[in-house]
């Protein structure tokens, strides 16, 4: 059932709720930016899953 009436607690805890909301939004933004950074800087985005991957084979060849 949706909340239709504004209780006094909503007003009293507004600052606290807003702080939590902004913190969570900031956390989502950080995880997103970190993900983009890792991909852009060539972090490992694929792993061996029993199928032939030219990219993996090539890197193995280079290291030898």
């Amino acid at each position, binding site marked *: 059932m949706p909340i239709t009436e504004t209780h006094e*607690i909503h007003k009293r805890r507004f600052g606290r709720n807003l702080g939590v909301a902004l913190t969570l939004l900031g956390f989502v933004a950080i995880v997103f930016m970190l993900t*983009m950074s*890792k991909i852009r800087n060539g972090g490992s985005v694929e792993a061996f899953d029993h199928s032939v991957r030219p990219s993996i084979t090539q890197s193995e060849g280079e290291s030898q």
Partner: protein
Amino acid sequence: MSDFTANTSSTPQEAQFGDYIALLKPRVMSLVVFTAFVGLMVAPVSVPPVDAFTAILFIALGGGASGALNMWYDRDIDQVMKRTQSRPIPSGRVAPGEALSLGLWLSALSVVMLGLAANWFAAAFLAFTIFFYAVVYTVWLKRWTPQNIVIGGAAGAFPPMIGWAVATGGVSIESVLMFALIFMWTPPHFWALALFMKSDYDEAKVPMLTVTHGRPHTRKMVLVYTLLLAPVAIATGLTSIGGPVYMAAAVVLNILFVKGGYDIWKRTEAQALEDDYKTEKKVFRFSLLYLFLHFGALLAEAGLSSFGLGGW
């Protein structure tokens, strides 16, 4: 009918968002941010800006989490001492259990996020630092030995090593010397403060050197530690992160700090009372500048080296 019962009673002492921030000791966090940032920037391996920002943020959050755990454990003595009575737990705004769970969850989050942003060595180092501050210092040393400041100071000295580990994934002589610089600086810094701060540690039964060994002994120890600190500061300048700028700053700052330690040592308590601890206050303020300028000079060397200058 609802199976959910909300506590809607209005309490005048209800916690605001700022109270949860206060549990994280923001002033301590700012020192952690600065020294970890310098540790990361002077390392020989460059880190992408977003990764570096995230790493510093979660190192700071880990430091904050250990602050919350410290406030949870020390809530009994915080209630006794005037300086800490207005903290969120003793004032009744935040329940002890809330502070404990905030500290534990933020510790776990900061360690995992640092592992993902940087590497698992740095993450393990952060976990150890949180453990060291919350358990070794807060639970074990603080109420047991007057050497609490000396050994416990290690917790505040780890951040530049973690910053270095974020970039390099390891430990080296440079990062150990940055640790040693803060570690040796903490006792004279804190004891200079303890000499002029009228504190109620005695009532709280926390063994402070000024109470257990007397003020003349504390004065002597301030001088001893400034003398022990100087070679550490100079040795840092001889490594790959040092250079002429750092060395010039270190020589001047250490001469002045040893002089300050000597001035404190030769004074009697009567002389200090007469001028309201003028020298002690001056040395304490200088100690803050001392640390800031040492790490600032290391940062300057790193900045200059990107222009082909700086370093030896």
